[in-house]
């Protein structure tokens, strides 16, 4: 394993829908131990970018490199198995399963063993402890037996992260994890993200500017599909180009 701190590398990623260019030659590096935030107005191309990095959409041009390998042609499940985790803006937890089963099923992806039809999933020696570990890390231990649909919104967002962690990924793509959260829940989530930094490379797409400036090590600003700035939070905050295009004089 190389000692390259860059775990995910996107180069000149472009995506066209007919005549419309949704993402225009975007390059991005995700380093281990760092949170890289992507901000931009609605329609700036952030969702398309994260979908291309995770493998849900194929780019019209450009490459994606994960842990040194060119994964541009890989499907999403394959990238996920190689260490790429993804959370969604809208909750994609399984509402009828318990919190524990949500985590366990996610963890099962790393050790699927589908042919052992006689052996109960609840006694799986790999996914069960991994689920406990992920739930503990996300602070969901006391809620393990509750049906996920009955959790509060903030708890559901935590579960979304826990499911991401259950597969022990090295790269995390987080799409608006703070969406719809109150102040206290936001603090808890940011503390979790700060803790997760070590050992992981995190991409954070977010609208909550305060949170972004608190936690990001690097910020990429997108407008109309192109990157207009990629720098430290301080530099981005004071950049005149960013201020006029996006922050509107903050």
């Amino acid at each position, binding site marked *: 394993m190389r000692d390259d701190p860059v775990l995910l590398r996107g180069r000149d990623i472009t995506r066209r829908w007919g005549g419309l260019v949704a993402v225009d030659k975007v390059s991005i590096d995700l380093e281990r131990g760092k949170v890289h935030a992507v901000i931009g107005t609605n329609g700036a191309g952030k969702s398309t970018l994260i979908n291309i990095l*995770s493998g*849900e959409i194929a780019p019209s041009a450009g490459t994606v490199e994960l842990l040194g390998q060119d994964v541009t042609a890989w*499907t*999403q*499940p*394959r990238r*996920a*198995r190689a260490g790429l985790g*993804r959370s*969604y803006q809208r909750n*994609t*937890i*399984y*509402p*009828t*399963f318990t919190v524990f*089963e949500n985590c*366990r*099923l*996610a963890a*099962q*992806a*790393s050790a*699927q*063993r*589908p*042919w*052992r*039809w*006689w*052996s*109960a*999933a*609840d006694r*799986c020696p790999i*996914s069960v402890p991994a689920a406990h570990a992920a739930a503990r890390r996300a602070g969901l231990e006391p809620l393990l037996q509750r*049906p996920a649909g*009955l959790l509060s919104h903030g708890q559901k967002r935590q579960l979304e992260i826990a*499911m991401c962690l*259950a*597969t022990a990924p090295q790269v995390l793509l987080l799409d608006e994890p703070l969406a719809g959260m109150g102040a206290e829940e936001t603090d808890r989530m940011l503390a979790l993200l700060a803790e997760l930094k070590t050992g992981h490379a995190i991409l954070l797409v977010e609208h909550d500017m305060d949170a972004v400036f608190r936690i990001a090590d690097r910020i990429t600003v997108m407008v109309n599909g192109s990157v207009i700035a990629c720098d430290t939070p301080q530099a981005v905050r004071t950049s005149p180009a960013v201020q006029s295009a996006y922050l509107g004089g903050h």
Partner: protein
Amino acid sequence: MNADRGKFLFVALCFVGLALYPLVAGKFGVDLVTKIMVYAVFALSLELLVGSTGLVCFGQAAFFGIGAYATVLLSPPADPAALAWLLPLCMLAAAAYALVVGALSLRTKGVYFIMVTLAFAQMAYYVVHDTPLGGGTDGIYLNAKPVLGSLMDLGKPLVLYGFTLACLALTFGFLALLLRSRFGRALAGIKANEQRMRATGFSTYPYKLAAFTISGGIAGLSGFLFAVKDGFVNPELLSWHLSGAVLIMIILGGLGHLRGALIGAFAFALLQEFFQSEAIFGAFAKHWLLGLGLTIIASVALLPRGLVGVMGQLRERLVGGKGSKESVDA
């Protein structure tokens, strides 16, 4: 835990009841319940697809019919075939067609999938109906029923009853184990949110294809049992009305529960007997499909969770407010 205990007890009682039934029933009763048990195996095959994986297949009759036709076509013309190789071969034939149909249809989504599975079943129907292979609309007779050496002669009604009961129990047990295994939980995840499964690292297509093929094989088993019981097969065994009937069975019983397939098969057979009864309906009895159609519409509209959910629905009505959680169970 109490709820699970109750479900297990219910299923166990059903099987005990079925085992003891021939002691009190006459020839007609044994024949009828054999038919119902065959339908129950058929319904279980579809439950794996629709209830457990969320794949609404409207062409299950094709696998049933292929299993039935294979039974007759592979049996020697005058002598009984050996059960030991006939049964697996018939299941294999049905599973093989399921593999092909699944490989093509599973690339489609949602409503397309329903239409494509129906179309492929219709294709099999036409092959059997129009080509000399299937004996045309007249059908083919099974002249001698298979035997297991000198141990079992499926030509005897009681032996066939016992054998069918054993097949039903084994199928039920197999599916119960399958659904609580890692494979089964993956299917449940695919049903709940396929995109999330993919994002987590599951390649969902192979799972769905495996479920589809296994389901086809089990449907083939029920086709085999049907052919042995009736001694006769005709193209109507692949008709889409049979696909509709088995779908109704599992909805009626309750989707997402294996015992729902059992309940549904019984309920459907009883409804059929009821509406076809000349004693009650007189001249209308031959228009029994009218009653069935109205029942289907009413049951989908009024009993969204099927008969399995009736208790829960009543409880909610009486007590008011949300009932207990829905769990992933057999």
